[in-house]
């Protein structure tokens, strides 16, 4: 809802989605609610995540649903865009998968590990690997520009294979281990539970969110979006659909 749209009676919300299943979740679970409330929702989907925040900054989008808090903050600083989290949404957790090995203990020196290319997702992936003690990362690294150069300690001399997110699963057979985003597991015939390691808890920083420009935080439409995600109706949809098995639910749902 840009000024003339939101301020008027038309109640238009322009939502942008990036990589992942969040658009589908929105279409199935949120859109019906908003439409009942009389909103006209315009959806733009992006095949990569990078242009969403700039688009919101320039006013082409009202709402983006693709990122987590740390990325939003970090990119916001980079872009000079004042964004805020509206609410948390169910998120697909990253996991460490392998077709060759059954246990984390099978890791050998020089093993090959697939990691994501984009900074935010790579940042999460390294956090996961750090949690199982395989690496250490520079604690001062910025999420928005996080790269493999920020890996400070590599206990097993792991050889990184930096691939496109979707590619990680496809090429699992060619590496020893792969960090794969939950949404890819969900849409494949695998289970998140088959991971050797999963992001144990997604904290405030890594849980996926809906984000808006801070100035829009208190608008009616923003509140309506937030309450749609918190509604019983939406919870029932998520819990009743086996797409979301193994996903991490918003902290406030507990």
């Amino acid at each position: 809802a840009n000024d003339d749209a939101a301020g008027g009676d038309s109640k238009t919300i322009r939502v942008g989605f990036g990589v992942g299943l969040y658009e589908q979740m929105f279409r199935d679970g949120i859109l019906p609610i908003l439409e009942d409330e009389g909103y006209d929702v315009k959806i733009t989907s992006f095949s990569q995540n990078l242009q969403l925040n700039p688009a919101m900054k320039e006013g082409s989008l009202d709402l983006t649903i693709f990122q987590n808090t740390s990325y939003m903050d970090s990119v916001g600083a980079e872009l000079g865009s004042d964004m805020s989290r509206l609410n948390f949404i169910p998120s697909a957790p990253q996991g460490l998968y392998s077709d060759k090995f059954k246990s984390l203990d099978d890791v050998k020196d020089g093993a090959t590990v697939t990691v994501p290319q984009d900074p935010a997702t790579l940042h999460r992936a390294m956090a996961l690997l750090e949690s199982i003690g395989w690496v250490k990362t520079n604690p001062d690294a910025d999420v928005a520009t996080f790269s493999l150069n920020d890996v400070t300690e590599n206990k097993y001399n792991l050889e990184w294979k930096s691939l496109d997110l979707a590619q990680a699963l496809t090429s699992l057979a060619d590496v020893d281990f792969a960090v794969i985003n939950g949404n890819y597991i969900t849409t494949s015939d695998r289970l998140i539970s088959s991971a050797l390691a999963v992001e144990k808890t997604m904290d405030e920083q890594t849980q996926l969110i809906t984000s808006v420009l801070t100035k829009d935080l208190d608008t009616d439409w923003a509140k309506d979006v937030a309450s749609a995600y918190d509604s019983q109706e939406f919870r029932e949809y998520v819990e009743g659909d086996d797409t979301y098995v193994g996903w991490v639910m918003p902290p406030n749902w507990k």
Partner: protein
Amino acid sequence: MFNTQVTLEQFLTSIAQTGQLLGVSFVGGVLIGLPLGILLVATRPGGITPNKAVYNIANPVVNIVRSVPFIILMVAIIPFTRLIVGTSIGTTAAIVPLILYIGPFIARLVENSLLEVDRGIVEAAESMGASPFQIIWRFLLPEATSSLILSMTTAIIGLLGATAMAGVVGGGGIGDLAIVFGYQRFDTFVMVVTVAILVIFVQGMQSFGNFAARRVRRD
């Protein structure tokens, strides 16, 4: 098999978007590429109106634009895109970088086609006192038409490939559907259908191009 997440409406929308991306960008690309290609041929050393200054600007400019990977080009020109179409996202916004991508490419193909025209034709034109514009318009372009048609066919198919990247700025289209659902969500049905649609697009354009070129060549 029919287990897919994509609705018929999404398919239709994507087809329409691809039509728009392809049609508008191609027209735009030709509007840039054809004159640019002609310029390269006309001003090159030994050309119709040799002009070192113009050639030495136009030639590297084409190279520079062609150097930039498309995805980077899309992002790099966002301020320009916004200036032109008022937004940096969506189908219309994707068209601007697509034009910039395909224009210089078309320029090179045009250049190559025009250079193949028999020198005797240019001589005949010169002997009639034809102006550089007339030489191009009345002699070079007609003589190169069949080759130009095949070049344009090659270009539009290349452009179709590039439209698949329109999703980076939310441009949509069949190719993006293939990437987002087929590639990123392992939706085999979408993959197969989108590729089939693309194949039909390409086959249709190539057949039309071949037919038109043969028609012009009269064989």
